[in-house]
């Protein structure tokens, strides 16, 4: 942790905490190169409050899938905090070791709290969501094709 103290923020009007959670999660999971394509250099003006820093988080599992937590192993993450000239603060905690990824994620988190939000959503978040949804659906569809159809089994979709 840097020496500065970071206060707990409450979401200003215009978006809900759930909405912010959604875009922060989307940015964290996004591929660094896709994000770089959607938000190329030069980046909008900003100032680091906490320059991108690589570290780990201990991932917890649950005993017997739903019981008490246990330490499963670590994951690499990068975090960053910055602010825009208007003073809006953006945070990021993203998977992997890509500092530029964390910087862009924090920057977008900040921009999403400004009047830029709808433009950012349209240009960056919507394509990211679509790419992720497509990727997930493609894998789910392939998994579904390996579902065993026992001949005694009757399912609704069977004709």
């Amino acid at each position, binding site marked *: 942790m840097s020496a500065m103290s*970071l*206060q*707990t*923020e409450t979401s200003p009007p215009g978006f809900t*905490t759930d909405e912010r*959670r959604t875009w*922060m*999660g989307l940015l*964290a*999971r996004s591929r660094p190169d896709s994000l770089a394509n959607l938000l190329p250099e030069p980046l909008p003006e900003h100032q680091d409050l906490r320059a991108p*820093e*690589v*570290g*780990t*988080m*201990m*991932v*917890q*599992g*649950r*005993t*017997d*899938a*739903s*019981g*008490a*937590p*246990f*330490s*499963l*192993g*670590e*994951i*690499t*993450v990068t*975090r960053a*905090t910055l602010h825009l000239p208007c003073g809006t603060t953006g*945070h990021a*905690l*993203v*998977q*992997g*070791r890509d500092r530029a990824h964390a910087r862009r994620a924090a920057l977008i988190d900040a921009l999403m709290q400004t009047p830029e939000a709808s433009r950012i959503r349209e240009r960056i978040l919507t394509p990211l969501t679509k790419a992720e949804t497509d990727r*997930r*659906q*493609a*894998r*789910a*569809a*392939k*998994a*579904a*094709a*390996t*579902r*065993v159809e*026992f001949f005694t*089994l009757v399912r609704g*979709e069977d004709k």
Partner: protein
Amino acid sequence: MYVAVKGGERAIDNAHAWLAEERRGDTAIAALSIAQIREQLKLSVDRVMAEGSLYDPDLAALAIKQARGDLIEAIFLIRAYRTTLPRFGSSLPVETARMAVIRRISATYRDLPGGQVLGPTFDYTHRLLDFALAAEGLDVVEAPSANPEGLDNVPHVMGFLNRESLIEAPGAGDEVPPDLTRNPLQLPANRALRLQALARGDEGFLLSLAYSTQRGYGNTHAFVGELRIGQVTVEAELPELGFAIEIGEIELSECETVNQFGGSKSEPPQFTRGYGLVFGQSERKALSMSLVDRALRWKELGESHSPAPARDEEFVLSHCDNIQATGFLEHIKLPHYVDFQSELELVRRLRAAAITPSGKEE
């Protein structure tokens, strides 16, 4: 007497230079990229992440390249690198019930909500070498797709047994689990600590131990209630914000076994659980882990003592880490000139004493 040994620096430098050359192999053949290792040797990458106890496919691929494919050496590199990174905190426990499954099978129930999903498995292959793979420029045919209905929320099989109380409740414990990377392993270990040690333990060691329980050395009579593989999201609290966000997505293999249990004075007969959870796609390891986890639980389940390696917590937990094992094993090849000199002196003196002044052996 300690004799400082110097020298060998040039030999070591030259050995390392040669290692680098040998690592590269024939330069007429294209070098492997990290991305190629990550994408095409994925199960090696997964093993290095699981036993290196650090989820980062690119790092694991780099380690495999640097280690010339020696996975234990690669795991060693990952463990060493991990120590250089600051720990930001812990995630919330991952919810495998919400896993986007690519594989999900049960050996206890045939018909299940969500169905039996085979996924990209080696099972049912004939284990015949496919010489077509040796040909270059082979096009891959895209795998078939089907309607993924019901795959977005696949319930755990154990839930069915749990509803009827036919199986013990999931393991309880502290909300803040122990972490053996922060505090050295102490015995007796609680189940959370055992699961962490097993999750990063050597696959081969756990496989052999699990196999030994099947052959009668600490019988567990395990059925695979469910084996599932897929992506889960990792969530963590951001202290600055005061709420949790998703920080990434990881692939996990999970195995839950159903085991026999005769009941006790206080408990009616009930099935018992063994649990395995591993980074990446590694069902052999997840299965092994769940069998060994169950074997180690004999005391808390009030089972009678029967000596078997897989039930011996100290034996299992002290020897399952392949980096500890290889470190201690391999150190004996380093110079022990002085140790050996003293042994040599001793044997000479003992032999001299055993021989009488007349020259006859007693």
